[in-house]
Every structure is written in structure tokens, then in C-alpha cells.
């Protein structure tokens, strides 16, 4: 255990201690943010290659052959290469973007400030957590460059495909080993992070910051940390067992009598592929909430701020977050309706899955209630928060279909599922990140992002993601299978090839629109207008200190909180917002 934070901090001198091996939660948060930004571009590039291949399966591209001399010999991608792009796209996006940025990035930067602490509880552990994540990313990227290339068993790494070794495909040799190693290292990093988040939030809240005065962002970071703690521990155990099956010949997940690529696999016996699925999804379903919960927190914060109204039903929101977190651990079986499970188990999992609809609907209606009759300010961050609500509803509604075992049997291996999880877990969470970026960038970098550029970026992205992912639902309805690299010779799918072309073009354009964001980000970091301390007239603690905050956040002062997090438009108050640190009298005037 590293030494806990002390009251007296001294800003470190020197580049290495200040920016590389920093103990400052703010620097670590920014490090996580840029790690995620790098990863999202890697992941996006992989998805573009997939979209290109799907509509041009036989096209020969000379530079493909240069990058992958065997997997794309002659410039034409093999199906195995397509699968490895898919695997790495999913893995990098889920672990190094969706898990990393909303929680470890923004959470690291703003959780201590929002609760009035000077740093995380264990700064050394915090630094180790980041560099362990970095190591995990390096190992994951290295899987591209080993013999056979990246693994092709999907981000879920189902055995036997992921367990039987090189014989199942080119990337299933060293590539899959590195994949498991990277995930195990990532689990370790996440556990360190979770310890820090929970200890900080429980023990370092400033005077007056009761649990029910915490911004909803803090609640979501807390519940996400708990989910990560319990989920990643299980994934770590499962990963170790899978690695042993691959390397020392145990049979945890590999059954006997396997016949793969014209060879009988003789050295395994009695293992259960379903066991992996149970362990994986016990982590995998909470992982969905790890990705989306912080986005819900940011959205709640922004809808309240930019409607100039208190959040509708703060307590209901807190209980909804807690029940989503709790129920999230009881529904993993709905990923396994196809596995031949007992129909009664399937019914139980389906019922519990429907139960999650209740807190989700509470949140959605409370967001609408917050907007109702508000003085809405359509800033870029607000637009992204509204986009989050839209995508969350769209993705959530298709989830109700998939939660029914009878319907899932049809939909499960089609594009319907791809459309569903990209909407709710992928793009919604990404919109939460964009919302957070536009809202908090002034605090993080002391300068404002460009709003017109931000709005152009928003509209292109918003229309773009709907253009990419809405057609997938229809493709699923007509029975277009997912994970296939080429539909050109499938007779019954001849009619949907133009739909695939449309989606690919939508993906190219949406990806190009992200350049606007990157330019905006880096240009504004250097040249944006100087940000005031509280550009949005917000109420929470981070807006009570300079932009960017001093080294120990509150310059040695212990803040005292007298108000709830969302006191907007309080009657009788001099302004339309009351900061959490304002003296209590402001409130009594009302």
C-alpha cells in the first residue's frame, strides 16, 4: 500500500516528476485522457479498414500488402485479417477507451476536486495504475507485430477458438497470448484505480460534502469503481485460467474431442467453454455499465447546468445509479441465451434484464424533467449531453428486444446486436466523453474550446453515428450475420450490399469529422481564449478555483460545502446559481 495523501503538498520540479511520473491526480487524469485519445484513433482506423473491406472484399490495395505481407498477400485482406481487425477494434475500444477515459481520465481529474480533496487517497498507487495501463496498451499493440499478427477470437475471446492455440488461426499463437497478458495487466491497473477511487470518495470528502451533496458524476464514478473492482477481479482469474489452457496444457475451458482445421486436438479433455462465458460475462455485463455510468453522470451534470434548473429527482437519480450497478451483476446470462442454457435460467435472466429498464427509465424521465421548462443554453457540451440521451434511448430500446430469449435466438448473431451495443455502449459513452471534454476543457487547460467548430463537429458526428448504426438494425432483421468479412457471394444478402456501402461512406465521413475535434482540441490548448474560473456559471467545487487549478487544487484552503450540487435558479438568490461553497445565508433568502 502506498503512502496516503498528506495535507502538505509541494509541487514537484523537473519535467519527469511533473509530467511523466507525476503523482498529481490532474496530470494523471490528462495522461489517461491522451492514452484514450490515442487508442480511439487506433480503434477507429481499424473500424474503417473493416468497413472498407466489407464493401470491397476483393479490392487489392498495395499498401495493405506492405503492412501485412502474409495476411493481405497481393493487397487483398484475408478473412482472418478481418477478424483480427475486429478483435482489436473491440478490445482497444472497450478497455482502453470506454473504460479508461470516462472513469480514469475525467474521474481522476475531477473526483478529488468535486469532493474538495487535494489529491487521490494514494497518489503513488494512482501513478502506478496509469503506467500499468500504459504497459497493458503497449502489450496489446505489440500483438499486431508478432508472428501471425493480432488474435481473431473477438473481444470476448471465447474458447475453444481462443484456447486451442495456433491451429485455430494465424493470430491465435503469440498474438492471443499477448492479448490475455495485456488484459490481465489491465485488470491489475483497474483494481488499483478502483481502490483509489473508493478510498478517496469515502474518506477524503471535505467538510459539509455529505453523500447526498455529491455531484451525480461522483456517484457514477463511485459505482463504476465498485463494478470495476468486482468485475475485473473475476476477469483476471478467468484470464489466468485461459492462459494456462493455452500454455501449459490444462483443460479448464477446452473440451475433449476437438477437431479443428483437419486436426484432432488430443491434449485437452473435459473442459467447459461455457465456464469461460459465465466468468467472462460476469465481468462483461458490468463492463457495459463501467462504460456508460460516468457518461450518465456527466449528462446529468450538464443538463442541470445548461437548463439552469436543479436536476429533477436527485435522490431518485442516486438510487437509480445504485440499482443499475447492483442489477448489472445479475444479468450476465442474457449474453448466453444461445448457449443452450436451461430455459428457466434464460427466463430468470430475461426478467432481471427487464428490471434494469426501470432505473434506466427513471434516469431518462428525470433528464427530460430537468429539461422541461428550463432556460436551455445550447452549448456544444450541452448538445453532446442531449445526444447522449438520444443515443441512450435508441440503444436501450433495442436492448429490450435482445433481452427476450425468443427474439435473441434470431437476432443474436446478426447486425442487430452490433447496432445495439454500438449505440448504447460505444457511441453514447463517446458522446459522454465529448460532453465532458467541452465542459471541462476550460478547467483542465485554462482555455476555451472553439464553440462554432464544436457545433459543426457535433452535428456531423450526431447525424453520422445514426447513419452508421441505424441501418444495422434493419440488416439484423433481414438476417445479415455479424463477424463475416464478405457478403458478396451470399444470395439472400445481395439486396443489402448498397446499405453496407451507405454505412461505410457514413463511417468515412464521420471519421473525417473527428479531425475537426482534434484540431479544435490542440489549437485551443495553445491559442484558445483564456478561460475564466467559472465559464458556465456552474455550481460544483471545480468551478470555485482558478482554471487550471493550482497544484493542490485549493491552494492549501480546506473548502467547506454548504449547498447541494445543483442549486440553479433558486428564487431570491442574487444569481441564477448558488455555488456549493457559497455561504449558507444565500440559501436562506429563498
Amino acid at each position, binding site marked *: 500500500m502506498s503512502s496516503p495523501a498528506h495535507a502538505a503538498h509541494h509541487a514537484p520540479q523537473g519535467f519527469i516528476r511533473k509530467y511523466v511520473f507525476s503523482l498529481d491526480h490532474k496530470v494523471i487524469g490528462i495522461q489517461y485522457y491522451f492514452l484514450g485519445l490515442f487508442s480511439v484513433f487506433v480503434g477507429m482506423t481499424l473500424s474503417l479498414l473493416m468497413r472498407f473491406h466489407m464493401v470491397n472484399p476483393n479490392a487489392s490495395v498495395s499498401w495493405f500488402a506492405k503492412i501485412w505481407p502474409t495476411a493481405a498477400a497481393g493487397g487483398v485482406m484475408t478473412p482472418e485479417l478481418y477478424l483480427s481487425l475486429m478483435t482489436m477494434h473491440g478490445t482497444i475500444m472497450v478497455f482502453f477507451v470506454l473504460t479508461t477515459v470516462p472513469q480514469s481520465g475525467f474521474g481522476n481529474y475531477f473526483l478529488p476536486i468535486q469532493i*474538495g480533496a487535494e489529491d487521490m487517497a494514494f497518489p503513488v498507487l494512482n501513478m502506478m495504475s496509469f503506467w500499468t495501463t500504459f504497459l497493458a496498451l503497449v502489450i496489446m499493440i505489440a500483438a499486431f507485430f508478432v508472428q501471425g499478427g493480432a488474435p481473431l477470437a473477438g473481444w470476448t475471446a471465447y474458447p475453444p477458438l481462443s484456447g486451442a492455440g495456433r491451429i485455430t488461426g494465424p493470430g491465435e499463437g503469440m498474438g492471443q497470448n499477448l492479448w490475455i497478458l495485456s488484459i490481465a495487466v489491465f485488470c491489475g491497473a483497474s483494481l488499483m484505480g478502483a481502490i483509489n477511487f473508493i478510498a478517496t470518495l*469515502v474518506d*477524503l470528502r471535505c467538510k459539509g460534502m455529505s*453523500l447526498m*451533496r455529491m455531484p451525480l458524476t461522483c456517484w457514477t464514478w463511485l459505482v463504476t469503481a465498485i463494478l470495476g*473492482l468486482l468485475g475485473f477481479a*473475476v476477469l483476471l482469474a478467468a484470464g489466468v485460467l485461459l492462459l494456462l489452457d493455452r500454455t501449459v496444457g490444462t483443460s479448464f475451458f477446452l473440451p475433449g474431442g476437438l477437431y479443428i482445421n483437419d486436426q484432432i486436438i488430443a491434449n485437452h479433455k*473435459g473442459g467447459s467453454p461455457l*465456464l469461460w462465458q459465465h466468468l467472462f460475462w460476469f465481468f462483461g455485463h458490468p463492463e457495459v455499465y463501467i462504460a456508460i455510468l460516468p457518461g450518465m453522470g456527466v449528462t446529468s451534470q450538464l443538463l442541470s447546468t445548461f437548463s439552469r434548473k436543479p436536476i429533477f429527482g436527485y435522490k431518485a437519480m442516486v438510487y437509480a445509479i445504485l440499482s443499475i450497478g447492483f442489477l448489472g451483476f445479475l444479468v450476465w446470462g442474457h449474453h448466453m441465451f444461445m448457449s443452450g442454457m436451461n430455459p428457466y435460467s434464460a427466463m430468470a435472466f430475461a426478467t432481471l434484464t427487464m428490471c434494469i429498464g426501470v432505473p434506466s427509465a427513471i434516469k431518462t424521465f428525470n433528464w427530460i424533467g430537468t429539461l422541461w421548462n428550463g432556460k436551455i443554453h445550447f452549448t456544444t457540451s450541452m448538445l453532446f449531453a442531449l445526444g447522449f440521451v438520444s443515443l441512450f434511448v435508441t440503444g436501450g430500446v433495442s436492448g429490450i428486444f435482445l433481452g427476450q430469449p425468443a427474439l435473441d435466438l434470431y437476432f443474436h448473431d446478426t447486425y442487430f446486436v452490433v447496432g445495439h451495443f454500438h449505440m448504447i455502449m460505444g457511441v453514447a459513452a463517446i458522446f459522454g466523453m465529448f460532453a465532458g471534454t467541452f465542459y471541462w476543457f476550460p478547467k483542465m487547460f485554462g482555455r476555451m474550446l472553439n464553440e462554432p467548430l464544436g457545433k459543426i463537429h457535433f452535428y456531423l458526428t450526431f447525424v453520422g453515428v445514426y447513419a452508421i448504426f441505424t441501418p444495422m438494425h434493419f440488416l439484423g432483421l433481414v438476417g445479415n450475420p455479424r463477424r463475416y468479412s464478405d457478403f458478396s457471394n451470399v444470395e439472400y444478402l445481395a439486396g443489402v450490399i448498397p446499405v453496407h456501402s451507405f454505412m461505410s461512406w457514413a463511417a468515412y465521413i464521420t471519421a473525417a469529422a473527428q479531425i475537426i475535434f482534434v484540431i479544435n482540441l490542440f489549437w485551443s490548448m495553445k491559442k484558445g481564449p483564456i478561460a475564466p474560473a467559472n465559464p458556465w456559471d456552474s455550481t460544483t467545487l471545480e468551478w470555485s478555483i482558478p482554471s487550471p487549478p493550482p497544484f493542490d487544487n485549493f491552494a492549501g484552503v480546506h473548502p467547506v460545502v454548504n449547498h447541494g450540487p445543483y442549486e440553479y435558479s433558486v428564487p431570491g438568490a442574487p444569481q441564477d446559481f448558488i455555488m456549493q461553497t457559497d455561504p449558507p445565508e444565500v440559501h436562506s433568502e429563498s
Partner: protein
Amino acid sequence: MGMSGSLTHDILNGPPPPPIEHGWGGGGGSDGRGSSRRASFTGLFVLIAASTMVFAALTSAFVVRRGLSDDWTSLPKPPVLFVNTIVLILSSVVLDLSRRALKAGNRSRFNLWWTVATALGVTFLLGQAYAWRQLNDAGFFIATNPASSFFYVLTASHAFHLLGGVAALLYVDVQALRLRLGPAKRTAIDVTAIFWHFLDGLWVYLMVLLYVWG
């Protein structure tokens, strides 16, 4: 007194942590040593929760894998495991004798008992290595059958945790021998001891699991 405060105090039975203003209910304020100490205990309990989940996952895999197949043959476990169990329990007892000595102000006795507990911890690890060696000699390797696979995985995972515990014991021991036991180190002592007791209890649980079903 908040929840985390009273909980740690009850378990510790040692030097009471400084008064906490609000705890869970009100935001106590980060007031130096008190919050550091509290945060250390919260972090410890969170760590224990994570370790528990790892072993819960392995246990569930163990039960499922055993129930699903017909290739499970019970492993002849080396009797030295019982000796190791006694050694580990003894180390926990000695560790608490040591903490009592510190509470009574007897530094030299604290140092002695703590060193003995650390040595017993290392002895346990050596004993586990010896048990592995015996199994190897008897022809039971990790891939021999599922019972041996789980035996090695569970004992190795526990030993891996224990290595961390021994490192913490050694750290405190070195600090104690160098007469550097300020108030902050008292937290390290308590955190290490609680973690060690957890590993002790975990091992007893694994013994039951391995002997009843393994």
C-alpha cells in the same frame, strides 16, 4: 462516529484513530493523519474485496468444472499442508502478540514477535514449495488432471498474495529495527496485520475446499 471509523476501530482494538467528525454521513474533511489512516483502511478493505472476488471466481470455476465432467480424480495431497496450515495460523497469532506488545509500549518485544511472525510467513511459503515438490515427484503436474490444475492454481494464487504480505511484513520489520515507527507506521502495522489475517483465513478456506472437493 462514521461507519468506516467504528469498523476499523473494532477490528483493530489498537491505538484508536483520531476522532472523525462525520464519516459517511457528512464529509469529515481531509484533515491530515486521520483521513490518511481512514483511507488506508478503506483501501485495505477494498483490496480484500477484490482478492475475495478472485478466489470466488476460482471457486465457482472449481465447482463447475468438477461437476461438469467425469475426468476429475481426487488428488493425493501432501500431508505437509497441515504443518503449513499450523505455521500460518501461528504466524497470525504471533503477529497479534507483537501488536499487543507495541500497545503495551514494549518495542523490543514487538520487534522480536514481528520478526518471528515474518519468519513463520516465509516458512509457510517454503512449506508450500515443498508440497509442490512432493506432488511433482509423485507425478502430479498442473496439466495432469483438473484436480491438480486447480490445486496448483489456487495454491499459487494464494502464495502470490502471500508474497505481497511478506513484503509488507518485511517492510514494517525493517522500519521497526531501524527504530522508525512513527504514527504513520502504526497504520502500516495495522493494515499489514489485517491483510495477513485475511490471507490466513483464506488459506483455511482453501484447505477446506481442497480437502472436501479437491
